[in-house]
């Protein structure tokens, strides 16, 4: 048997590897480089995970939006696969952002949940994109499912500014209990955040590409089977 021992790295693999390495590097920044926050102590380190997943989650949802428009214009299955892959990763990230945010709130504000506009917007988006994935599972006619999912992918994202605005206006009834989340960041903290965002960005790109290729292959196998 002839075994090919040479390792070839796909773009997805390369990105994931780079993401993993840079996340390891980011640990150095988080634990050693950045100073410990005065009032919150070590728990503040959650911030370095919370902010990157929240941002990249939002960017994933933006990718769903763009890919959905692309699908509606060109009807190419690839765009649909990109949209669903991004939705899955976005949902995972917003779950993480909500969990870490909740931990943060417990320590910082002494409550698990509060009607903070950003928090609420994240939760409502979590519901919308969870619904998006449920919808995709539930409609059997695949052409119709893709079309409906793409329409939902577009309106869901268009809705985000309004959700945020309404959540902010809603809070204004109650007095603003908490000051702005991040005031003046120490320069070391800022650099650490940037490193973490970049590292997670690499991993996200890798994950997205990997999931996209997986879906692509799944569809090809399925079509072979049908023919």
């Amino acid at each position: 048997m002839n075994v090919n021992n040479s390792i070839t790295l796909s773009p997805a693999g390369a990105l994931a590897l780079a993401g993993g390495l840079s996340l390891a590097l980011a640990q150095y920044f988080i634990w050693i480089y950045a100073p410990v926050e005065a009032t919150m102590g070590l728990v503040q380190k959650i911030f370095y995970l919370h902010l990157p997943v929240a941002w990249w989650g939002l960017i994933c949802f933006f990718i769903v939006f763009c890919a959905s428009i692309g699908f509606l214009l060109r009807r190419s299955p690839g765009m649909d696969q990109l949209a669903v892959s991004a939705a899955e990763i976005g949902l995972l990230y917003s779950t993480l952002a909500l969990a870490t945010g909740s931990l943060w709130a417990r320590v910082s504000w002494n409550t698990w949940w509060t009607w903070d506009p950003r928090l609420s917007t994240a939760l409502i988006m979590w519901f919308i994109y969870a619904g998006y994935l449920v919808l995709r599972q539930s409609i059997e006619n695949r052409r119709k499912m893709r079309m409906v999912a793409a329409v939902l992918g577009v309106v869901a994202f268009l809705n985000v500014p309004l959700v945020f605005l309404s959540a902010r206006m809603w809070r204004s009834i109650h007095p603003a209990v908490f000051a702005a989340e991040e005031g003046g960041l120490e320069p070391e903290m800022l650099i650490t955040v940037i490193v973490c965002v970049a590292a997670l960005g690499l991993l996200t790109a890798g994950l997205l590409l990997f999931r996209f290729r997986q879906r692509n292959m799944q569809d090809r196998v399925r079509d072979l089977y049908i023919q």
Partner: protein
Amino acid sequence: MYEKEDQGVLLELKKVSHFFDQRLVFRDISLKLKKGSVLILAGPNGAGKTTLINIMSGLISPASGSVLARVPCEKRAFLGHYTFNYPGLSALENLRFWAGIYGLSKSEEDLTDLLVLVGLKGFVHEKARTYSRGMAQRLSLARVLMLDPELMFLDEPATGMDARSREMLREQIRSARQRGAGIVWVSHTLEEDLNQADMVLYLQNKKAAFMGPATEFRTEVLEAAQ
């Protein structure tokens, strides 16, 4: 030369192919349907007859190729397995609704006359949900006749009809043809309906296995197979 050939062409397909997802349904279908002629679509189950007639009627856009209908949308009519009747409306209300959607101003007498013509006298004010399959299909036929179509698409219209309704359907197809309407007809009682057809398109193996005059189809395909 070119123009003369195209005179009286109501519907033209040029190299039409269609896919479901990646799966080919058929490819390179080209045809011209002229005024006052009947084209029968035939072929084994799953050959894509219904898909093709849906493409011809404009319900689906083909993956590639072009469909050119030289008849305005309001002069095209479709009669298929589905009757498009609203069960909660009476026969008359059903017709009145479709007349409104097609922008026709028909008096109540006009519509009643049509219903009498298709043999629904006495059921004009009955709700469509009480109708038998054959009656529902005749109501659907009345809707089609009301449009006075120049292009008719029939997708196995006789399904579930009794012998009398079927005869009525044939008669209406004949008279529509005499008026100069072009008719596309998916039939599963091919032998019976062949003598009414001018042209036959036989779908097999994802392409047009036969496309030509009905008389040739009889000698070349049907009798050869026997």
